[in-house]
């Protein structure tokens, strides 16, 4: 293992292709890798979104007429896996983390640039492999959870490709996590204290700890599962004396923290965006930091709340219910702080802050249903129904994906030096917000009335509500059009943004847009107050704002 970072690297960088071509090279520049993560993730988002549309078309009628049942199972498995492992996790960690963290710690690159490039370049091949598994004897059909014995008994080649792909993506995630921890802890600019870091650094530190501690357990579990499929061992096969509940424990030991891996970085990003656009310091910095760390610790000990119907003993139910309810406390503190940040601020209504506020609304709703689901009697009633689907999508789509869009609107001027069209952005927000709520809010009702998830057919009494949901999904699909048009128009003929169009104080705005290869022309600046809005030196800027 030789990762030598010496002066040779900086020479390499100046030799690398310039312009858009650099995004197709094995670049070591953290900014290029960040954009590679983002664009690659977005392409997979389009694939996953197409699959989601297929699901909603199928569910517009109670019989399986649009596709056969086994294809429906493959589609929902691929949809879940692609959206989680190839869109949300890489983008919200890899893309924004790589782009922003070196700026925030005052460094010129990540701690291990080569490991960083390796982590990214594992993603496109494993993603393509996953998508291509449709063309063997069918893709995996066991859902993104791959519960045995279902995953052992369904066609095997698709399932094995699924396992290989998720293992590689997990490896990529671990490499990324190691890199982020080393960068944040070890590569901080001299003089910069931990408690002066922008909140996204803390969020990424917490997330990376979760990645490093929990992803390897998933890897081990999937290795055992692949033994069950290929070598016919019986780890999780009850016929051979195995124990399926052990799989569920190990799987959720990763996959519950995975929810925080998807949502903690979004918490960090929204903490960067809100103060800038409301011209106020972030409310309660210290409580934010402790909430993040509280979520990290609690997030590791709540996994069995996914398994209340798996024969868990009463003491386990009691413990995991209480631990899960406790997570609402640090999360609630964070929401209080964001609302307090907005309170009385000079809010400029633009696409970035609209998506952030949409996030707050959606996530609070998803959080409330989450607390409800943590209660055993309620959970047993709605387990494996559309209520869970609705809750989950309120967290990951209404929460994280809204923040991904918010962040794209916020940092687009930094990456390209161009402003985005606010009109198209607000149109994008309006269609997404309406479409999203139209799609997923009715599913709470469906779940409470007993419509099971992951089944292509349903009782005809649910048809009308399902059609409302499908219309919402259609709106969500349409909402990508103004977004893509906006991106391409703005890159081509957007107005020049200048280096700091938002008058922001975080370090990435103190260099030119787009930033030079080594981030700063001179030495990295020491930003002691990344949220010092409203201080005398900025009164002038404030008075210019409407």
């Amino acid at each position, binding site marked *: *293992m030789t990762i030598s970072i010496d002066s040779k690297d900086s020479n390499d960088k100046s030799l690398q292709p310039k312009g858009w071509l650099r995004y197709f090279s094995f670049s070591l520049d953290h900014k290029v890798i960040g954009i590679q993560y983002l664009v690659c993730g977005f392409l997979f988002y389009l694939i996953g979104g197409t699959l989601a549309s297929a699901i909603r078309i199928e569910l517009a009628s109670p019989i399986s007429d649009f596709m056969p049942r086994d294809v429906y199972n493959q589609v929902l498995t691929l949809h879940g896996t692609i959206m989680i492992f190839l869109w949300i996790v890489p983008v919200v960690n890899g893309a924004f983390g790589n782009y922003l963290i070196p700026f925030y710690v005052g460094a010129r690159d990540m701690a291990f640039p080569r490991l960083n490039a390796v982590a990214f370049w594992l993603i496109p091949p494993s993603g393509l492999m996953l998508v291509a598994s449709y063309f063997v004897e069918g893709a995996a059909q066991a859902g993104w959870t791959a519960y045995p014995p279902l995953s052992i008994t369904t066609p095997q080649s698709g399932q094995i490709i699924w396992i290989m792909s998720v293992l590689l993506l997990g490896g990529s995630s*671990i490499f990324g*996590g190691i890199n982020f921890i080393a960068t944040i802890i070890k590569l901080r600019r001299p003089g910069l204290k931990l408690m002066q870091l922008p909140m996204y650094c803390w969020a990424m530190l917490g997330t990376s700890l979760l990645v*490093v501690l929990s992803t390897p357990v998933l890897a081990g579990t999937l290795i*055992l599962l692949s033994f069950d499929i290929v070598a016919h061992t019986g780890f999780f096969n009850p016929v051979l*004396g195995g*124990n399926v509940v*052990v799989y569920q424990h190990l799987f959720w030991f990763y996959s519950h923290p995975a929810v925080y891996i998807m949502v903690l970085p979004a918490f960090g990003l929204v903490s960067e965006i809100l103060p800038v656009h409301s011209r106020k310091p972030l409310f309660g910095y210290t409580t934010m930091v402790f909430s993040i760390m509280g979520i990290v610790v609690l997030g590791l000990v709540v996994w069995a709340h996914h398994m209340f119907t798996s024969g868990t003993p009463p003491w386990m139910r009691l413990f995991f219910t209480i631990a899960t309810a406790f997570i609402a406390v640090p999360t609630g503190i964070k929401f209080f702080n964001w609302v307090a940040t907005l309170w009385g601020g000079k809010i400029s209504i633009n696409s970035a802050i609209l998506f952030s506020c949409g996030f707050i609304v959606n996530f609070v709703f998803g959080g409330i249903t989450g607390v409800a689901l943590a209660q055993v009697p309620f959970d047993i009633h709605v387990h494996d129904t559309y209520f869970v689907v609705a809750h989950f999508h309120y967290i990951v789509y209404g929460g994280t994906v809204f923040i991904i869009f918010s962040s794209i609107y916020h940092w687009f001027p930094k990456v390209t030096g161009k402003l985005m069209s606010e009109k198209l952005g607000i149109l994008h927000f309006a269609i997404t917000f309406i479409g999203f709520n139209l799609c997923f809010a009715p599913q709470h009702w469906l779940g409470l009335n007993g419509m099971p998830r992951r089944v292509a057919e349903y009782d005809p009494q649910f048809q009308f509500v399902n059609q409302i949901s499908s219309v919402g999904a259609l709106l969500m699909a349409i909402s990508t059009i103004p977004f893509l048009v906006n991106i391409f128009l703005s890159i081509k003929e957007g107005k020049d943004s200048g280096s700091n169009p938002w008058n922001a104080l975080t370090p990435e705005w103190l260099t030119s847009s787009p930033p030079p290869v080594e981030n700063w022309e001179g030495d990295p*600046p020491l930003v002691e107050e990344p949220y010092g809005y409203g201080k005398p030196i900025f009164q002038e800027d404030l008075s210019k704002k409407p």
Partner: protein
Amino acid sequence: MTTLDSSKEINKNDSDVSEHHEDFRMFGLITFLIADGMTFAGFFAAYLTYKAVNPLPDGAIYELELPIPTLNTILLLVSSATFHKAGKALLKNKNSDTQKWLIVTALLGITFLICQLFEYFNLPFGLTDNLFASTFYALTGFHGLHVTLGTLMILIISWQTRPKGGRITYQNMFPLEAVELYWHFVDGIWVILFIILYLL
């Protein structure tokens, strides 16, 4: 507010690149080993749960003998000590001694693997015989994979510490220190594995 000047400290770090970076390469390795340790923790947790809730079916054979694993434990513990010796010798700039100790360590690792294979061939159960048999082979096999990789890395660095033209010297000790840490980690895992699989 924003201070643009502390060029002194920055430049000091720039001129001292090798030492500065060596530091967090080790940090990165430790983080990786924690992650690797969590994989083993998952396996151990699965094994202990099976032991607690899944009884061995009637007529199934799952019996382990102690002599070979005990010998293996001693082999690995001794190899940790010989590796440590190699590091000490390099600190004194005695590359040929380092190389000798490394080769001894690698031989101990190879002996361990041979003993492990000998045990595999003489056990009365196979991979798919029952749950505990499968878990036993998965755990020891995954550990054996780590020993194999470690042995290969020791052979590589023992070539790289050759007195003439080797890239590892007492000024550039990181590759040796990294493999040493990894080797101690693999030994530590074996001790836990020995206690859980054979003694419990």
